[in-house]
């Protein structure tokens, strides 16, 4: 592994001095996400495998190029899991890609996002230096939290050599409930339940149907089932439903980008009211994540997202000229640019993937 890391460092130094952009890439399953970027392919899968895993420490350290499915299988073998339930979006998904895109799945609102589980990273910066931040322990406030900065940075700060993640035990039991509710009823109910000590681990509303998943100790799940009512959805239907939402194989997502269609991802406060935009919606995360298929203009979608206190991402499809991510205030944009400059002074890592210019 040491030779690979040294080779990567040499390659980065060479690219930096020649000004050659590098397109950092794992399995390419999330290539659609973010701005498009050109550059020489830099395949992270050369560094693959679990570096260390101690179930009783609740920590796994893994190379960025490790297939996500491989890590999940290793954890499942010990009755543990990645609690943020990352989407794969394809068989080739890597752990580095999950961290770099910062995308989390259905359990996000209950358990936390990828960034909440990252304990440490090693990256190669734009000078070719191998840098280690954070570590393998749960609590660590030595230095700025660079590990979390790397989450969602889309490779623009440098390739992830390895990452240490907090893992959790798999819940002893899961049960799913189905309710007939309109959008407003569902959002109201999810927020009301969110204020009660209930073991809700996922929610998805679409087309007048709200699905809720409960996870935890059998006694807690059983009492919540009684308390909430609704119709119990048996397995394997329930399990495949949650996978279809996570992987965007649910009917709502089918052909969402055909005929110039756009799939928007709106992150909003959980209790935000109706978006006020035409189109079809799938709502997750207790109301905080709203997938939207709409013919409305990007300006209109973003204006509504801001008005509701959130932001809108052009997730799939649409014009490449429309920035994927919501533009930032000038003061924030300046800090972000300066951070990019700090890690990658030559601007060689995935230029344009996050924002114009970086």
């Amino acid at each position, binding site marked *: 592994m040491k030779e690979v890391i040294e080779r990567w460092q040499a390659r980065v130094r060479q690219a930096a001095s020649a000004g050659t952009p590098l397109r950092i890439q794992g399995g390419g399953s999330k290539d659609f996400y973010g701005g498009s970027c050109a550059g020489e392919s830099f395949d992270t899968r050369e560094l693959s495998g679990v570096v260390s895993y101690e179930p*009783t420490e609740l920590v796994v350290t893994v190379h960025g190029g490790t297939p996500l499915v491989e890590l999940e299988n290793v954890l499942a073998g010990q009755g543990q899991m990645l609690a943020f339930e990352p989407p794969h979006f394809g068989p080739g998904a890597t752990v580095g890609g999950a961290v770099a895109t910062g995308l989390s799945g259905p359990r996000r609102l209950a358990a936390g996002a990828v960034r909440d589980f990252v304990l440490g990273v090693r990256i190669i910066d734009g000078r070719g230096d191998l840098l280690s931040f954070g570590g393998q*322990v749960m609590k660590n406030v030595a*230095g*700025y*939290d660079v590990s*979390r900065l790397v989450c969602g940075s889309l490779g623009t700060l440098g390739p992830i050599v390895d990452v240490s993640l907090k893992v959790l035990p798999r819940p002893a039991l899961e049960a799913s409930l189905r309710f007939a509710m309109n959008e407003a009823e569902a959002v109201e109910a999810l927020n009301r339940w969110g204020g009660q000590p209930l073991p809700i681990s996922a929610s998805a509303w679409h087309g007048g149907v709200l699905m809720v998943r409960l996870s935890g100790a059998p006694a807690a799940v059983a009492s919540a089932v009684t308390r909430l009512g609704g119709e119990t959805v048996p397995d394997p239907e329930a399990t495949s439903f949650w996978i279809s939402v996570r992987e965007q194989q649910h009917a709502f997502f089918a052909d969402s980008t055909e005929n110039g269609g756009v799939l928007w991802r709106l992150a909003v406060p959980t209790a935000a009211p109706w978006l006020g935009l035409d189109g079809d919606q799938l709502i997750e995360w207790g109301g905080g994540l709203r997938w939207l298929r709409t013919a409305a203009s990007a300006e209109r979608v973003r204006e509504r997202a801001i008005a509701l206190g959130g932001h809108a991402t052009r997730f799939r499809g649409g014009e490449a000229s429309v920035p994927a991510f*919501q533009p930032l*205030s000038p003061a*924030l944009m300046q800090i972000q640019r*300066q951070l990019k400059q700090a890690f990658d002074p030559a601007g060689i890592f995935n230029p344009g993937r996050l924002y114009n210019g970086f």
Partner: protein
Amino acid sequence: MSAISEAVLAGEQEGDYSAVDKARVVEALSRVLPAGSLMYESEDLKPYECDGLSAYRQMPMVVVLPTTEDQVVSILKICHELQVPVVARGAGTGLSGGATPHAFGVLLSLARFNRILSVDPHSRLAVVQPGVRNLAISEAVAVHELYYAPDPSSQIACTIGGNVAENSGGVHCLKYGLTVHNVLKVRGVTIAGEIVEFGSLAPDAPGYDLLAAVIGSEGMLAVVTEVVVKLTPKPQLAQCVLAAFDDVVKAGDAVAAIIAAGIIPAGLEMMDQPATVAVEDFVHAGYPLDAKAILLCESDGTPEEVADEIARMRQVLEAGGATEVRVSRDEAERMRFWAGRKAAFPAAGRLSPDYYCMDGTIPRKRVGEMLEAIQSMERKYDLRCINVFHAGDGNLHPLILFDANQPGELERAEEFGADILELSVELGGTVTGEHGVGIEKINQMCSQFTRPELAMFFRVKAAFDPAGLLNPGKAIPTLNRCAEYGRIRVSGGQLPHPELPRF
């Protein structure tokens, strides 16, 4: 005022601010602040000379107590223009000297930013000013059956702004997370006087996660003026198990066994015998005093869930060789179990004129090794140490007892502490789990990070604070300092002189 040199910006050496003109700074600040918000006579400055790390004292040049964000903006613009260092301060309970004043700087107290601005029980969030006390949030939202989860021991006094600066934890963070997991948004002002918002009320925000960078940044990146915290539903029931062990290593192994059984306790704490004896005298928690170590394991949730989890914990603890397992029978007994743990610091204060609290975090499986090493350090430095741990997350708080009036004891205590921190790094951990680096652990940062890593920290700071005026000299050691300290970490985990035994 001369521009800041390249060497300072690159983190090679500390800035020299001795040319700051106090009269000019006072005059400029008096134009934007009412008389009661600006202090510069030494008798007024005295209360600010230290924070919770009272061994380090420094009188500030000026103290300001703004009441509005506009005033904060004006203060920072003036300091930026006149190149004056700024140190933000909450309640001053920090244990690492993060709020130690700068001799040529402005100490910016946020004590008057003490209002809870709004509570939204339906969305489970509260908007608060940074000077609001941690516990005051939970008290204010208790009527909605909600609370703010992070509970540092100092929660009666410490402020949420200080918690943001240090990424504070507490005894329940194994299950409920640290400050970074429970804060949605931070509004602040940059040194240039620009208002910025990090994070959002939505589940995430676009671009790099600046919220994560700001939390735990020890006042080095921006001055916080408003915090939006996440509120958590109060569990229906909490119960605590007290387990006694005749051997500290067995207690440590039992911690791992609980996790291995798939249990994430709401709290998992360990105290060694000297610690239980010290607190028992003081709070009468009913701890078994013949035990070499005790564990406190808390379970919370629905009554059915708690009953189930407690039964499983009991089984694991008994299988792990516990000599006694007691389950709290009611809330009063649960509070009594915890009272002992929470009284560890004051108890240390009763045992000894001074104590020095460490904050290393190590992988749980190395706890036994660390305890043995601390025992030999007690002999080496001829000082006593009592140990309390957030065992669930490997965060250690050894309390080194000393008497500052005895010549040499403070120095021995500091060396003792430095040894513990360096061993923490060597065992795969960190020099600070939740108290921050401040000035206290700045030398040990040289052992934990390489030169390029430290240089990157300076660049990150410069992205927010290009002039380097926010809390200079804290948290990140200059490269010159590390060279003098002589212990900069070399790549690959190898320490200088690996052949030497370390205790």
